[in-house]
């Protein structure tokens, strides 16, 4: 008599898969929190062929359509921005300053910030745009 063994079906245990997935989820959520940035509600200027300008260390100066200036998403005076730029430059000279102005902002408001950066002898500035 031939004895046949019942073939066992191979089942991948999915329980451990969900554990891995949730660990990954927690990790990515934490990374996203570290990268979190405050955004000012502005209408981005648009342009074609914009290049990626983010560097390892970045400092964002936002200017809204009424000329309000924000540093990393929080309202700030020109003096506070001047101090923050000098401090960032002293700590890491390769810090990149990003100028994020509303498309309708009158140029004189942007020029005020540019003049301040010129006075600080801060050379390379990124004009942030949205892809057209």
């Amino acid at each position, binding site marked *: 008599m031939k004895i046949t063994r019942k073939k066992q079906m191979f089942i991948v*245990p999915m329980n451990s898969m969900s554990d891995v997935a949730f660990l990954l989820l927690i990790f*990515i959520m934490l990374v996203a929190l570290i990268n979190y940035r405050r955004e000012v509600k502005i209408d981005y*200027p648009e342009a074609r062929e*914009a290049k990626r300008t983010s560097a390892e260390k970045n400092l964002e100066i936002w200017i809204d359509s009424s000329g309000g200036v924000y540093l990393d998403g929080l309202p700030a005076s020109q003096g506070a921005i001047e101090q923050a730029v000098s401090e960032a430059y002293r700590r890491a000279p390769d810090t990149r300053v990003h100028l994020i102005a509303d498309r309708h*902002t009158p*140029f004189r408001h*942007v*020029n005020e910030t540019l003049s301040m950066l010129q006075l600080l002898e801060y050379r390379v500035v990124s004009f942030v*745009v949205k892809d057209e």
Partner: protein
Amino acid sequence: MKITRRQRRGYGDSAALSDLAFLLIIYFIVIAGFNINKGFLMNLPAKNSTRFVLKDDLLRFELDPSGGLFHQGEAVDMDTAETQIRSLAATHPNLALVLGVAPEAPWQKVVSFVALAQRLEVESFSFTMTGGGPAGGAP
């Protein structure tokens, strides 16, 4: 005595859960990607710095308060400006492109001109507020 067999739980229940978790992972990865800034790098000249340019090499445009582009007093559109820059750059390798911007001109128009100058690879480009000092130059 009643013998009860322990019920086995299947693996199928958690499959949907892991799908959901992976969808959330993709969502967070996409959100993290939004933080990258795109734009144009500009070199700011030193305050009150002067630069000597031959008159023949100079091409100057003006932006009026409403954002209209002018060249030698005549209104031009971006395409015409591009043609003019291209033709002068072909004969003048040391072309210096200057944009005079009215204080009330919208930022979008300035950015559009900066994009044009960078696309045409004009080495010497600067813009200035009408009645003020130089604001920016090519990187």
